[in-house]
């Protein structure tokens, strides 16, 4: 793409919305909400990372005294909870928010204000859970909160923060999932059939269904736990004949689909990146899509492999073991498709590409150790040891986080108009790859040597000293790589090379619009003719099958601009005026933030029930105020 310097300068001045903090609080623009999700996730990532560093410091040497047992319990609980619910899910939501509408050719999500509500509820609930540190102590019953440990009443109300906080986060996720599903099913651009959707959009759709059908199960579990703790209900009270195992079932019916919620969007991102930097279409697109959907379906039938040591009986254990092996098949299909995409491609080793390849390699390691959990006798040995910790960090850090970082490097130019620095990015990659493997590969050995999870210290002479020290050194290398990453973002946001609309020679619709995109995304709603539509607008094949560039048409958007012959600036700043007066974007609204604030006030009231009824009532009033204002205000304010 021959892009001249002049339009690039213009593109940085594209109107992306009002400035100022109030404009961000009231925004209903899916792109801004995406950026808010991303920034917040990065903030919580730093907190969760610091918790991990404290854990590793405590475990660096035998019988260390960095942390008390009590503090250690809080830190590993908050680390798990933070990374799952406040980092990886929101970073996936950030990408989905920003790119799902653009990738399917829509101007916004189906319910822009509901989208804002989801974000604010996520933020407030996350802050609420963290505020527990200030009032005596954070949740300390592990992120899985197994009953009856989690139903024990302590002086500090830690596990109530966990129960209410997760409940609110669940509400936010269900709202945004319904939103995304409605967007995909009803708002695709003309010609964008389901099998022309980019893989990332597909994975976002599968994830939305996973959340819709899995979150209510843990929601009920959390309500039961709350009733047990505060109203004397007996759902998990073994002394009254109840079965605490019920909690494990309800939790993992949610918890296992949840791990696919965490990783499928990363797989979608990698499936976008590999074709671009191999200059080849994704190998077996349909197989990748349907494998993703198959993972979603089978993901609901494997939850009890988390419970092989809880005495389910041989029939259930065999069944869930086999289902667990089956789910490796679609996962393997995807991996072979990615390798097939790379095969024979003209590969460019850019930073997003490096992280994508890192994703595949690390995820394969994590996937293989995961298959070993499907073997019940082996799993019985590995259960609750560091082998499990190593396994899920390989799939969730080496897998998911590498995939999302690849996404940041890939799409950062679309967000900001500027590229992240490639040399710093490569330094980041190698530091993170090295640090990651130093941290978690030794934990396989530690686990197989019998080191249990969730214990705050160990004695000398058990053969664990050396690998624990290596692991801690690796953790600090990861921290260093994250500092490099943050430095890269801060530096490149202002001083990075100007990207232009299509810096990577991309294949999908987001590269047809300016960087950053205008408020309404598309001046003309695109008409889609094939998978990788933008690529086929740019290239065709000659008789020998070689790629031939087509002449560029009207600044990248192929829909004809009837308005004038000045093809270069269709995405210029005539958004709010005469040129496109028929585009009405939804007006800003503070009611979504207000409604979610009311819910969190109610949440606080529920935690301190003995005197919190006033807060419950006040929160309910605020929520109702928000809801009524929300439903009565006009969606699009008449501007003139």
């Amino acid at each position, binding site marked *: 793409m021959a892009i001249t310097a002049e339009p690039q300068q213009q593109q940085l001045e594209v109107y992306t919305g009002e400035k100022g903090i109030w404009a961000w609080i009231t925004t209903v623009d899916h792109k801004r909400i995406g950026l808010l999700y991303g920034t917040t996730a990065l903030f919580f990532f730093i907190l969760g990372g610091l918790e991990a560093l404290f854990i590793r410091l405590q475990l660096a040497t035998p019988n260390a005294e960095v942390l008390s047992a009590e503090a250690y319990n809080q830190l590993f609980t908050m680390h798990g909870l933070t990374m799952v619910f406040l980092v990886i899910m929101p970073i996936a939501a950030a990408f989905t928010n920003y790119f799902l509408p653009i990738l399917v050719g829509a101007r916004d999500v189906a319910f822009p204000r509901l989208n804002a509500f989801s974000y604010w509820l996520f933020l407030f609930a996350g802050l609420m859970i963290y505020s527990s540190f200030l009032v005596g102590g954070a949740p300390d019953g592990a992120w899985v909160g197994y009953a009856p440990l989690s139903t024990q009443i302590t002086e500090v109300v830690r596990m109530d923060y966990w129960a209410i906080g997760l409940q609110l986060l669940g509400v936010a996720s269900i709202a945004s999932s319904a939103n995304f*599903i409605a967007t995909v099913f*009803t708002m695709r651009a003309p010609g964008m059939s389901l099998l022309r959707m980019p893989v990332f959009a597909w994975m976002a759709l599968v994830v939305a269904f996973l959340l819709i059908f899995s979150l209510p199960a843990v929601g009920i579990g959390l309500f*039961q736990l709350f009733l047990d703790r505060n109203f004397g*209900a007996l*759902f998990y009270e073994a002394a009254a004949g109840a079965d605490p195992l*019920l909690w494990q079932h309800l939790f993992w019916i949610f918890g296992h689909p949840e791990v696919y919620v965490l990783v499928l969007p990363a797989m979608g991102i990698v499936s976008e990146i590999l074709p671009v930097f191999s200059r080849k279409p994704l190998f077996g697109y349909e197989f990748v899509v349907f494998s993703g959907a198959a993972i979603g379906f089978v993901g609901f039938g494997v939850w009890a492999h988390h419970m092989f040591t809880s005495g389910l009986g041989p029939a259930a254990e065999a069944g869930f073991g086999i289902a667990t092996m089956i789910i490796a098949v679609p996962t393997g299909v995807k991996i072979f498709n990615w390798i097939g995409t790379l095969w024979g491609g003209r590969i460019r080793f850019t930073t997003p590409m490096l992280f994508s390849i890192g994703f595949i390699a690390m995820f394969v390691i994590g996937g293989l150790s995961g298959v070993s959990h499907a073997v019940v006798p082996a799993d019985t040995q590995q259960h609750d040891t560091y082998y499990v910790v190593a396994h899920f960090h390989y799939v969730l850090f080496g897998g998911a986080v590498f995939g999302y970082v690849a996404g940041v490097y890939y799409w950062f130019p679309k967000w900001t108009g500027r590229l992240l620095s490639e040399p710093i990015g490569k330094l980041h990659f190698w530091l993170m790859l090295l640090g990651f493997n130093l941290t978690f590969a030794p934990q396989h050995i530690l686990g197989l040597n019998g080191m249990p999870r969730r214990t705050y210290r160990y004695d000398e002479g058990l053969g664990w000293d050396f690998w624990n020290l290596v692991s801690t050194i690796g953790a600090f290398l990861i921290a260093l790589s994250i500092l490099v990453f943050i430095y890269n973002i801060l530096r490149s946001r202002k001083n990075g090379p100007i990207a232009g609309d299509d810096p990577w020679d991309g294949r999908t619709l987001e590269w047809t619009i300016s960087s950053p995109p205008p408020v309404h995304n598309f001046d003309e*709603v695109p008409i889609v003719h094939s998978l990788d539509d933008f690529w086929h607008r740019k290239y065709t094949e000659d008789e020998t099958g070689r790629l031939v560039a087509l002449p560029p*048409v009207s600044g990248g958007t192929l829909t004809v601009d009837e308005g004038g012959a000045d093809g270069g600036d269709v995405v210029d700043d005539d958004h709010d005026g005469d040129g496109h007066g028929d585009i009405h974007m939804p007006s800003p609204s503070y009611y979504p933030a207000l409604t979610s604030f009311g819910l969190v006030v109610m949440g606080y009231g529920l935690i301190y029930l003995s005197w919190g009824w006033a807060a419950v009532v006040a929160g309910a009033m605020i929520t109702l105020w928000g809801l009524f204002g929300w439903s009565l205000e006009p969606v699009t304010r008449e501007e003139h």
Partner: protein
Amino acid sequence: MAQAVANTHPEEHHGEHEHDVHLIRKTAMWVFLGSECIFFGSMIATFLLYRNNLNGGPGAELFNIPFTSASSFVLLMSSLTMVLAHNSFEHNDSRQGRVWLAATALLGSVFLAGQIFEFTEFIAAGLTLPTSPFASSFYMLTGFHGIHVAVGVMMLAAMFLLSLFGKLHHDRGLNVELVGLYWHFVDIVWIVIFTVVYLLQV
């Protein structure tokens, strides 16, 4: 090439590509109801696990089947009036529609009153939330269903008032059809609950 194809769709190409706003909201409502199935399913599963777990307290002998059958009948009839309300609004007969909305809300309230009466009776007979796992799961399941009915009654009342002041828009916010979908769902769930909790006495 693309230009040629674009020109074959002039009506889609020019101006704003309009989405069916009603379809969008209906899709979201169906998705939400799908999620509600798991919500109630988890509670029903819990109840089935604990139905014989009386912990020395009273059990299913407290149930007054004729009384609950009557209140179930009232709730099911409210689905009929809901359909009539929707039908009236479809034919732009808001006056008639409001009558049926009010009837639906009234029937829902009668059901709720029956449930409150029933709970009072059970508590008097010594069945409270902390009595037994059976009691906990019974109150949670029927209680959450009652909350759903109460929310439905509030939405019906809101529809009634919005229509009265001429602010009921078909194209945004909740409308009678969406509230109807929710209301029918809550009724159908009650059929399952009534069968599983009250009628199946094995």
